[in-house]
């Protein structure tokens, strides 16, 4: 019913005693997520919303058999937090923190290569699986509803936006993943698309991309070769002037292939229904599903 995250996931919250960490630990827990512990050095023995706090990820894993974590620590400490989670053997690490230097992520990407771990983010909203009542993320749960759509986005708020439109159109979601807007992220579109494509419970896929980089072109190649499920796509930044950085460091148009236009064309050629209007993502998906049924 979901990828990466489900009702059996045993989630840790790294940085649980911080403002964001404690707030979202509560929200994730309220959604139904099986949060088994939190980590903040020096705070072992405390509780946050009934969740026990540990000094180290190792100690938390030993006490709770956690197998996943979500990270809220400040950027200068995020690399270490990821390292600690991976070394402790967690299989899913979601790094919400934004502002990591690119060089840190170049190293982290190389570091996790070949390891049995999935890193989502950094600078991402995380993952939500409405049917599983599981959320390792900061997305407003009210925009989502259970269903069979696989939704993936580089942008956080566009993920919510697209989900809300889907939900409004009656299209529930199996899993929604925000992979993060940085130039180097732990998991790329293709990794998520593969999982959606291989999951028989996912019946349709929506992809929300951005200008900059080549992740959408790589996604289009994969889709063209592999995906036969109904799919729609939107790319943000069609109106952005070239060469300026639009918040996400990845979104600098540095060549033809990085433009919204070329990305949309690639995805369209791969068989996805594409739209240039971010307010109509849900509508496009609904029409696509209606035409198929």
């Amino acid at each position: 019913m979901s990828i990466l995250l489900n009702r059996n996931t045993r989630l840790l919250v790294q940085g649980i005693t911080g403002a964001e960490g404690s707030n979202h630990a509560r929200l994730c827990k309220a959604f139904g997520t099986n949060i088994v512990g939190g980590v903040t050095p020096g705070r072992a023995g405390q509780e946050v919303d009934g969740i026990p706090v540990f000094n180290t990820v190792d100690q938390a894993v030993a006490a709770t058999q956690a197998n996943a974590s979500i990270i809220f620590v400040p950027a200068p400490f995020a690399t270490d937090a990821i390292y600690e989670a991976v070394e402790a053997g967690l299989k899913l690490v979601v790094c919400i923190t934004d502002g990591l230097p690119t060089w840190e992520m170049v190293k982290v990407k190389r570091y996790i290569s070949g390891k049995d771990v999935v890193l989502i983010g950094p600078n991402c909203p995380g993952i939500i699986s409405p049917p599983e009542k599981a959320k390792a993320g900061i997305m407003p749960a009210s925009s989502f509803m259970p269903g069979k759509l696989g939704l993936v986005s580089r942008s956080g708020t566009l993920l919510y936006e697209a989900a809300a439109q889907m939900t409004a159109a009656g299209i529930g979601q199996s899993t929604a993943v925000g992979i993060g807007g940085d130039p180097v992220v732990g998991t790329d579109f293709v990794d998520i698309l593969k999982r959606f494509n291989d999951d028989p419970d996912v019946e349709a896929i929506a992809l929300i991309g951005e200008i900059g980089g080549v992740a959408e072109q790589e996604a289009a190649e994969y889709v063209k070769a592999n995906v036969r499920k109904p799919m729609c796509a939107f790319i943000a930044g069609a109106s952005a002037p070239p060469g300026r950085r639009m918040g996400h460091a990845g979104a600098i148009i540095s060549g033809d292939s990085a433009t919204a236009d070329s990305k949309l064309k690639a995805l369209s050629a791969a068989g996805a229904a594409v739209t240039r209007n971010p307010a109509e993502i849900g509508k496009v998906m609904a029409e696509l599903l209606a035409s198929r049924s």
Partner: protein
Amino acid sequence: MKVHEYQAKAILAEFGVAVPRSRAASTPAEARAAAAELGGRVVVKAQVHAGGRGKAGGVKLVNTPEEAEAFAKGLLGTRLVTHQTGPEGALVPMVLVEEALSVARELYISILVDSVSKTNVIMASEAGGMEIEEVAAATPEKILKEWVDPLMGYQASIGRALAYGMHLDGGLIRQAADLIEGLYRAFIARDCSIVEVNPLVVTEDGRLLAADAKINFDDNAMYRQKAVAALRDTTQEDPLEVEATTTGVNNYIKLSGNIGCVVNGAGLAMATLDTISLFGGAAANFLDIGTVNNVDRVISAMRILTKDPDVKAIYFNIFGGMARVDVIAQGLVDSYKQLDVKVPLVTRLTGNGLEEGRRILAENGIAVIEASDMADGARKAVAAAAGR
């Protein structure tokens, strides 16, 4: 973050990169003294954060200290207009006075993160002196690429491969390898996002020198690069963009339209601009207000927008997530108290804190044009900016 050529060269020189002898000058007299020290025959280069200086008249080969002084006098304090600056041009706060080189060949080297392999790539080309984008378009086979494994770091074979690939030989191989290693060490040690040497010059007397140098830095790493951060020259930036960064509104970019936008999330902000464009309008700015934890950042954003004479309407598109709608609403209320907001305000609010946010706006009598979704908001913002 960008720095001037003279600063980039100083950084590279720290890492052993060979650069021409030069002196930065902020007055015509300093330029004359520098030229005299360098032997009279020098190149004087306007220091601005933009390319295209040569064609714009910002670079000149002179033969005497007096000529250097005269040329510097005509540049310093003026605004240089290049194809990269826009019509307003860029202030010239300094000139670089540099030894004149007898150029035998012009090459190209740059280092950046490859978006495909997600690791650092060193690009080199024999076609130096022209924009690398043009080389890539016309003769892609002339661009050599070597990737650097982040674990192993720079290895001498990388520089050799590029040096031989550029058809250097003899002592230039070693010079090139050393120079490329220095560039790479600087790239890592200073958290650069791009290091570009164009042209990399082979002189008639067999020296290899970084004749021009451009460095951009990774903004996310400035917390650990205090010395680099101190090199920031705000004269080279839009004043509103400077105000934005100094008041915590980190993702503001001035654009050429008339609808001031405040959005949370970079992707949604881009999409908002796209929607405005779809309805025939144009945004006055990109502004990702990010995760709003207090109202001050909203006020700062509103202050910037009210200072921008181009702004004829303001459009708030907020999807409450980590940022909460009620905090945004309170910020708007306080903004109307503190600032003289004269233009219409269109709001599209949804997500976490929506009900409370609506209540706050209503109770405080803030007149907003409410939008039901982001298309509706864009349509209404375009109409409001047009006075309709």
